[in-house]
């Protein structure tokens, strides 16, 4: 098939899925946070608030896009554009699955594979701070300015452990292309332990995985590192003066960065779409999980807590039984199983992001800097040195 047509279709699919995932990530975050705090969360728009993201988008689009009179107009409008476009661009080099065949056309589940894919993601995340810093400065407001300042200082500081934590597994994998990184993590030790970089010899990369996650939290300005928008000291930080879609772009950028960090962590450390167990066993895991979900749904449908539960729970149960059956179709398995594992791993990491937001308080600013420079960076450096030594001594 024509290369351009195929690429256009892939771009459309990836962009559509990615943007929908961003909208629903916000719904999931609100739901999970609500359940952590023992409240129901969004509930009114659609069943279990499922249409809430749509309502939010309509609300944000129809709000007045107001530009305050005291701002630097050019940079004020440029900042959200920069923030959101730089946050969305990383997805173009990340693979989601192996080579697949759909209607006789073979293609990779990836937009493009750069030989320097990892460096590309690092470069984009390094430049990504301009959106936040400029927004803070151009707003001409002391709270925004402090937010922007904090953000740039934090990004420079955490960029180092972030990059060094990525460098250590690269020594094991010996490539910078995401596709080859995942391929180098396929296979199993002793027939059951996956060769993901967090388990891979000669030196398992668990430490750099944790450092990468911590630095990733700081890079995406998430709690406990959300100093740039600390609402109890800075009103709303760098986006205090923004409204309407400009405000929404900062939100989208934050969620897109969160998603990118989770996907990169999945690809670099958790073996991408490689299953945690060898094939005959792991092929049934999605089905078993979905059947369990269906069973729980039927149980709750039989003992309704609210009166409409008698209909909604069995319906959900039937849907998950259907999905469980789809996962058993042999033609679809090579497409669905890798996607399932990839989404499951990334989803668990995203849940950790939200879980930590619901659990930990915010750092104080000096603690944040102290932690980065006197603990995280030395540990990351030491880990890199030990990995290098082990690879030199026992590597292939």
């Amino acid at each position: 098939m024509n290369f351009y047509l195929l690429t256009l279709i892939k771009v459309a699919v990836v962009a559509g899925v990615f943007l929908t995932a961003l909208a629903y990530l916000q719904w999931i975050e609100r739901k999970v946070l609500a359940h952590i705090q023992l409240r129901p969360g969004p509930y009114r728009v659609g069943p279990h608030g499922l249409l809430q993201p749509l309502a939010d988008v309509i609300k944000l689009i129809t709000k007045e896009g107001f530009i305050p009179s005291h701002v630097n107009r050019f940079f004020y409008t440029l900042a959200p554009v920069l923030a959101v476009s730089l946050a969305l661009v990383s997805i173009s080099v990340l693979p989601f699955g192996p080579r697949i065949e759909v209607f006789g056309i073979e293609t990779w589940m990836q937009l493009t594979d750069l030989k320097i894919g990892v460096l590309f993601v690092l470069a984009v995340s390094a430049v990504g701070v301009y959106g936040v810093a400029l927004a803070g400065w151009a707003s001409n407001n002391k709270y925004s300015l402090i937010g922007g300042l904090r953000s740039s200082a934090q990004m420079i500081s955490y960029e180092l452990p972030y990059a060094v934590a990525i460098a250590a597994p690269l020594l094991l994998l010996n490539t910078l292309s995401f596709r080859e990184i995942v391929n180098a993590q396929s296979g199993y030790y002793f027939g059951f332990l996956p060769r993901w970089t967090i388990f891979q010899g000669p030196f398992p990369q668990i430490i750099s995985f944790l450092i990468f996650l911590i630095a990733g939290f700081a890079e995406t300005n998430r709690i406990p590192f959300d100093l740039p928008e600390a609402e109890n000291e800075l009103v709303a930080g760098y986006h205090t003066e923004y409204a309407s879609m400009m405000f929404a772009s900062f939100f989208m950028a934050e969620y897109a960065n969160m998603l990118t960090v989770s996907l990169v962590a999945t690809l670099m450390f958790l073996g991408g779409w490689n299953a945690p167990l060898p094939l005959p066993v792991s092929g049934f895991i999605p089905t078993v999980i979905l059947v369990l979900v269906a069973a729980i749904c039927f149980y709750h449908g039989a003992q309704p807590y609210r009166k409409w539960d008698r209909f909604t729970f069995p319906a959900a149960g039937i849907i998950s039984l259907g999905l469980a059956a789809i996962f058993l179709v042999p033609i679809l398995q090579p497409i669905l199983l890798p996607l399932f594992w990839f989404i499951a791993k990334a989803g668990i990491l995203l849940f950790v992001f939200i879980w930590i937001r619901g659990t930990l308080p915010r750092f104080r600013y000096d603690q944040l800097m102290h932690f980065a420079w006197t603990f995280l960076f030395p540990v990351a450096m030491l880990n890199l040195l030990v990995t290098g030594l082990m690879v030199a001594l026992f590597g292939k």
Partner: protein
Amino acid sequence: MDPFLFLLLAAIAVICALNLVVQTHPISSALSLVGVMGSLAILYLLLGAEFIAAAQMIVYAGAIMVLFIFVIMLLNAQGERLTRRGAYVKIFGVPLMALFLGLVAFVIQAALPRSEMVHFGGFTHGGPADIGRSLFTQYLLPFEVVSVLILIAIVGAIVLARKEID
């Protein structure tokens, strides 16, 4: 396609560079510099020097310029007023500039007579492995000397910036 891409990116780089000098506000100048670095990075990438392109974005555009902007924001530097130019500048400015550019062009012509035109994609030894190999074999001594130099610069900066504590 090659000349078109080159001219486009070169034009962006030159316009950003001019904007850097013309702008009166430090933040605008700093961002123009980021524009210059970005367009140069794309040129490197098109020429096949992938690693240099990525390093340019990560180190210069990502780290160093963010630090610049941080400092400008921290000092809350305002736009500067243009000073009035003297008569000599008005009379001799343009001719001297033309002379200087002509000299630069002449020196390049003299140093590299008849250099071949490069083509995008023609050079394929710019990957990370090639860079690493040449840094740690052929250019090992300069590489290590530069790292010592940078260390000295860091120590010097700390000494200069340190407050006197009795």
